[in-house]
């Protein structure tokens, strides 16, 4: 199974990358689960045509009990992608990191993987690895590979460096490894040079290069990914190429 966690600075395009990658995997015939791990709960919006799924933490807050079935906290979106959002506590209160751990425990209890039997599961994680909760997706048995989304902006690269170091620190724990950089272009000055230098200094490959595209924004306004909007566009092809790379890798590793 393809098990990917997507990290990166806030606002860098993690949800865009994750949902387009999910859509691309589904377009190529794979059964996909996408789990948004962010209190904002907007990771899967572009897979659901603007009809959001009820986040797990919101369910617990509103009903004061745990959901008893997957149907209550999931929705099937484009290409059959099963969409789940952890959500979070009331803003300014509680513990969002703990919310992610609680959600994962719950999904385990509800036998998510046994019931849905996915070919791929993608975790879209809020910002940096700020505490144990936000490292939960890369723990043993969950994601096996980490993709770091970055542009050439200074703070995006800084966050990417922190994420890489955090994952490195977990080596002895049998956690996920960083698979590579998803270069999400913002067209800032000397952008390619900066990202390539960053990747080389950490011995990380750039495994996808996503051009800045108004089409992404145009289709997002319609509640769609570019894969759903027009899979023949150049930007869509970049996501499809990344999906093919991950599929081939997974097949190689399991044979």
């Amino acid at each position: 199974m393809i098990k990917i966690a997507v990290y990166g600075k806030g606002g860098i395009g993690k949800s865009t990358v994750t949902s387009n990658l999910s859509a691309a995997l589904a377009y190529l015939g794979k059964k996909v689960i996408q789990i948004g791990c962010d209190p904002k709960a907007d990771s899967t919006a572009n897979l659901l045509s603007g009809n959001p799924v009820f986040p797990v933490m919101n369910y617990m807050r509103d009903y004061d009990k745990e959901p008893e079935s997957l149907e209550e906290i999931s929705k099937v979106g484009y290409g059959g992608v099963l969409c789940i959002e952890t959500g979070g506590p009331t803003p300014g209160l509680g513990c969002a990191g703990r919310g992610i751990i609680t959600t994962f425990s719950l999904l385990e209890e509800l036998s998510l993987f046994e019931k849905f039997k996915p070919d791929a599961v993608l975790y879209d994680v809020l910002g940096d690895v700020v505490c144990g909760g936000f490292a939960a997706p890369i723990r043993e048995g969950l994601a096996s590979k980490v993709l770091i989304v970055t542009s050439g902006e200074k703070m995006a690269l800084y966050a990417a460096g922190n994420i890489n170091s955090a994952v490195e620190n977990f080596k002895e724990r049998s956690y996920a490894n960083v698979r590579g950089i998803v270069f999400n272009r913002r067209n800032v000055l000397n952008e390619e040079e900066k990202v390539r230098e960053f990747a080389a200094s950490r011995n990380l490959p750039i495994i996808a290069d996503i051009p800045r595209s108004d089409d992404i924004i145009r289709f997002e306004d319609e509640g769609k990914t570019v894969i759903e909007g027009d899979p023949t566009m150049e930007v869509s092809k970049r996501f499809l190429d990344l999906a093919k790379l991950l599929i081939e890798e997974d097949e190689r590793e399991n044979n």
Partner: protein
Amino acid sequence: MNQTARIISIYAADTSGFCSALYEYGGMVVIHDASGCNSTYTTHDEPRWYDKKCMMFISGLTEKDAVMGNDDKLIDDLVIAANKLKPEFIALCASPLPAMIGTDLDAIAYAVEQETGIPSFHVKTNGMQSYITGAGNAFVELAKKFIDDKSYRNSEAVNKTEKETTLKSENNDSNITGSSDINVINETSTISAASDKIKVNIIGVTPLDFPKKENCESLKKFIEESGFTLNACIGVDTSLSEIKILPDADVNLMVSSSGKPLCEYLYENYDIPFVKGVPYGIRFAEKIKDLLKESAKEKRNIDATSDLRKEGKVAILGESVLSSSLAAAFFIDNGINACVIETVGDGDFDILKPFDFRCEDEAYLEEILKDFDVIIGDPLFKPICHDKRFVSLPHEAFSGRCFTKNAPNFIYASLDSIEESNK
């Protein structure tokens, strides 16, 4: 107010169940918690503390370590202690604080095992569930770690052939009707006596439910005098070698809710069925004996209490498997009908009948009890039982060691002594 206890006690937590389940297996048992709480798990809930040694530790978690995520400190301490003490295994569990901040004890156990070479594992607890969950999870994790799958698979073919021959021999014997069945088979079978007997594991024995030495002795006596071979008794009077041979049994006797996860694990992974029930009384014990044979033969899980319960004006308070078994024993041995009021809020609810109750709330319990004439339960329930006739049945998981010495033992014994014990 709901879910509060103003007058009565509360049950031991999952961390106590974890310690109790792993007490005798030679491992280093570590609760990740602030220091100063060891006696909660040992002297209060553990009658073996004064007789048998156990490497039970608290990690001494500080606020600073929790906030800073100083997991390395715990790993270093575990490695130093393990290298010195050479335990058979290292088992970790979480108190509420590490559970809340999401400390990854699976990863810490993995790191410690890599460093020391000593089998290490994490048992899921959070200090807020009951002893049943803690003990149940601990038994399963221990079995997962120590049942040697490879050697089991190698011997499986041979054992299977032997077992099939034995069962075939039983099936062909038309005299199999009562307690002397096994003797008849032993006399007529061509297979050696040792392999002829059905092998039984007793699963789910901890002092939290079975505090007295006599409890365990009676369970073993029941198995042996019924013509079975005791394969393992999990987890009192036991050792790690018994965990390793669990799959050798033909059938499991599940004597508490704490034993349920392991019984289900052994059924799903090794095709060993289980019978649910504590052999209280004489006739109910006989019934369990018959059902153990039936279960082994048909590879079917059986609730021994299922046909032996009727609604009555007697209430039995406590853990579901023990209480339902006692109710069934009263029915078949003494003709008394009793309802079970499950008061732990955890465990095996499948065994309960529609006329039974599940009640964790003190105020609600007080109301329910008004409808009964006789109440059987731990002495700490007595203050909310009004002027009803109260029969004392101490439960270690509820009142600790306060009343243990007066606790009657009804396992494989007449229930008439309940009157005597309460005079």
